[in-house]
């Protein structure tokens, strides 16, 4: 059993219980895509690209009065310590689905009838909390593509390790800890678009973990805002 929090209350990577890993976001990294973003969240390195809205192929998927969203979350074979076979695993299929559902509710799909929005997420290097980092990258890419959206979404997990509620779990805390709760959040509207939960929490702990995750999300939102502002408004008037 690994001790995840030492007697000084510091975690394995030296963070306190409510500290985030460093987050870096860059917008517009892929020229071929309509919108794209790159995120470094701790050791996670993830690229998200949005294509569309564009014509639907195959045609039988088409919905006459709104757009459909197709999401592919994929981990590169070199993203993990041991080679990960490139075909989609159960986990990747699940994450593709939850990411799609998390973003569908912020998009105004009725504005683009009979079309499709393709979202590709490629994990280049993985660490704990890659689905949360992916959600942040996707929202930056969607904003970059100019698709109408209610609000930006940010993702951050909270969890439990050594009996203590902690924010933004790293890979080892995710695997060895007692619980993990990824939360995707719309900061302006104060709404949650994704909440998954794995582990056993008391009601008290759950509330504390949720508050902590939302606090972390608000901090990531500031980084995301800054990245988008830099891309679109960096050339200021002198």
């Amino acid at each position, binding site marked *: 059993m690994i001790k995840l929090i030492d007697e000084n209350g510091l975690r394995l990577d030296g963070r306190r219980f409510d500290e985030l890993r460093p987050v870096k976001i860059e917008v517009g990294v892929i020229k071929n895509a*309509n919108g794209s973003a790159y995120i470094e969240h701790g050791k996670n390195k993830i690229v998200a690209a949005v294509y*569309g809205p564009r014509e639907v192929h195959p045609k039988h998927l088409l919905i006459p009065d709104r757009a459909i969203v197709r999401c592919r979350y994929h981990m590169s074979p070199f993203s993990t310590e041991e080679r990960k076979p490139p075909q989609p695993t159960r986990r990747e299929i699940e994450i593709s689905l939850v990411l799609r559902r998390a973003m569908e509710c912020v998009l105004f799909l009725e504005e683009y009838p009979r079309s499709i929005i393709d979202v590709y997420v490629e994990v280049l290097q993985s660490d704990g909390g890659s689905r949360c980092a992916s959600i942040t990258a996707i929202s930056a890419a969607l904003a970059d593509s100019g698709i*109408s959206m209610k609000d930006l979404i940010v993702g951050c997990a909270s969890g439990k390790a050594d009996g203590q509620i902690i924010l933004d779990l790293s890979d080892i805390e995710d695997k060895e800890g007692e619980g993990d709760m990824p939360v995707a959040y719309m900061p302006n509207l104060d709404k949650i678009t994704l909440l998954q939960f794995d582990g056993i929490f008391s009601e008290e702990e759950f509330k504390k973990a949720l508050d902590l995750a939302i606090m972390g999300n608000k901090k990531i939102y500031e980084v995301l805002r800054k990245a988008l502002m830099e891309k679109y408004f960096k050339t200021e008037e002198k």
Partner: protein
Amino acid sequence: MTITRYKVLPGDYIGEAPPGPLPTNTYKIGNKLYTLKIGLAEVEDKEVKFIPLAGPYIPRINDFVVGTVVDLNAFTWDVDINSLYMAHLPSQDVFGRNFSPTSHSLSEQFKVGDMLTAKIIAYDRTRDPLLTVREPGLGKVLRGEPVVLSPSKIPRLIGKKGSMAKIIESKSKTKLIIGQNGVIIVQGPPDGIVLAIKAIHLIEEKAHVPSLTSMINELLSKGV
């Protein structure tokens, strides 16, 4: 009356919702007005105007567009107008009412890969845009260099009453054919084309800067 300009991201609160129809690219919850896209929100008294800086081209009736023929069959040309929908140009529009697929060949008029200027005559949420070339100035593009600009930045390229486009045209000695869909054809001498394309790229980069006109002037007077 002072105009306040805000740089906004999707989901930003920009004020109280005005009575009547909402400004474009905004939505409301209760009485609060929020933005849908990245852009500039101009708030004057209680009136809100929103200028998006990104977004796809959504066709509108009477829009002038520049497209590329991507396919043809016995009755229509399929034209790519840089939008989410493929546009169609019916053969009757070109050959007249006497058109017959046995006596007319569509490829005589427009081949796959040809560029054309056209106007949208019909479009709604349920059908693809329909084009016409039966107006003066419309039809095949015979010369020039195509450039693509974000469709949301086209108003900036045109400027107030066409001022920006006029500056570029006169200083680079070229002619600009500006499609609302973001495709521009630059015609003229090679040096002028290079200069005009440089100016268009500058607009793409700095569309949000208020002193864009003077920057363009500076670039154009420097020459190639």
